[in-house]
């Protein structure tokens, strides 16, 4: 269950590519000072979200089996993760795609390739904006 920390602390990183996870995790931990949990698939993400006490999900779109959009819908459908804020981190960022993510309820989109030194600040900014929106 999302504990709703006053501050953004724990991030669930969902990406099927191990090296992308490695790089993103290091960027978020060393530059951003976040605690990062990893999931390699949509199914893993659902399980992790149920038990992990996360504040935010960084979600890839192009994944085998269950893609990011399906994962997003499943997260929303589950009691444990229904209010968990989601940021899509994806290479699929045509304007129409970005609008679709936001319309679905994502709090933001970070295009890949992301800047490792700036991604933490960007996540923090999206988190803050989402707080402001509520």
């Amino acid at each position, binding site marked *: 269950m999302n504990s709703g920390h006053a501050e953004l602390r724990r991030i669930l990183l969902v990406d099927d*590519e191990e*090296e*992308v996870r490695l*790089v*993103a995790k*290091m*960027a978020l931990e*060393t*530059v951003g000072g976040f605690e990062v949990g990893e999931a390699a698939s949509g199914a893993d993400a659902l399980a992790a979200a149920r038990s992990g006490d996360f504040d935010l999900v960084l979600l890839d779109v*192009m994944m085998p089996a269950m893609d990011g959009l399906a994962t997003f819908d499943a997260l929303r459908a589950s009691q444990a993760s229904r209010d968990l804020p989601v940021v899509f981190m994806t*290479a*699929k*960022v*045509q*304007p*129409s795609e*970005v*609008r679709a993510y*936001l319309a679905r309820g994502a*709090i*933001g*989109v*970070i*295009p*890949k*390739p*992301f*800047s*490792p*030194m*700036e*991604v933490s600040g*960007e996540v923090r*900014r*999206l988190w803050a*904006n989402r707080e402001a929106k509520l």
Partner: protein
Amino acid sequence: VHDITRRKALERSMRRSEALFRATFDQALLGIVHTDLEGRFIRVNRRACEQLGYTEDELLALGYLEVTHPEDLTESAAHHQRLLAHPKEPFEYQVTRRYLRKDGSVLWALASVGVIRDDDGMPEFFLTMVQDITELKKVEEMKNEFVSTVSHELRSPLTSIRGSLGLLAGGAAGPLPKAAHDLAVIGERNCERLIRLVNDILDTERMEAGRMRFELQRSDLGSLAARAIEAMQGYALGRKVELRLLAPARPLAAEVDPDRFIQVLTNLVSNAVKFSPPASRVEIAVLEHDGNARIEVRDHGPGIPDEFRDRVFQRFAQADASSTRAAGGTGLGLYIAKGIVERFGGTIGFETAAGRGTTFHVELPGTTTAPALAAPRLAVSA
């Protein structure tokens, strides 16, 4: 006797004319159908039957309602209404339209529709010529899918490369010896350039395929310019160039896609900074000019060489390949900027003077009324 001879000659001539029409109608590579004003087919040629998969008798028992794709009926009906409302006005149009074959599959067609009139000039029936472009559509879709896949396949490894080099160069993986740090910085910089190149190639492809989507909305150009400048500030600082915005006395609006407008300005400013000497200034002015909005981006660089001036807006055009490469350009920025500005119904051009600098200007039509506020920005990082 005279009359009979003349009548026979006339009949012969009419038969010949009819035979000519028949042969042309039947052998045409285009599907040709004649449709009465109620939408029933009255004549169909062989090719039309082949295209739709019906025999001639089957097709003649149908009308355009049965063979036109439901989603394209509205557009087709609108033309029909126009003809009924103004029967004596010229009527002819070309359109890409989908038809349905007998087996239910879709026939993509380029259709040319006109009308045959009676002696009083009133419409008698429609004449439609149909070119099958189904294969062309398939190839186009495959190409789009290919470009989209390539883009994703390129971005995935670039994500890891940019991330790794960025963390190394940024010191996040621990301190590096100076030489190693310098190498990481070179790698990172060139990785970023490759990313810009992939993005620009994708934009170019989309633009040329007419698939670059635009959401035109009345936007305040001054605040969009401020956002473009903000996005370029880091790059300008790195090259010791000052960016200055000269905003208009009162808000100035035009119909643009805000993100694409910012892309145009970003390309122009990036270009201006690239050719600016250190400690110089790039001025971005938003002003009113003959009832149009005009945006100027002025640098104090060396100016554009004479021999290059007519190629400035071409793809991969570079006045001096080595300097562009050193500055990290893609050679597509101005080409894309021109394409976008033209989609806004505007124009782009430049004035340049050797040793004094260059001013690029964009003119956008119809800007004198009070502006709406620019739409809130999408939550996407730069």
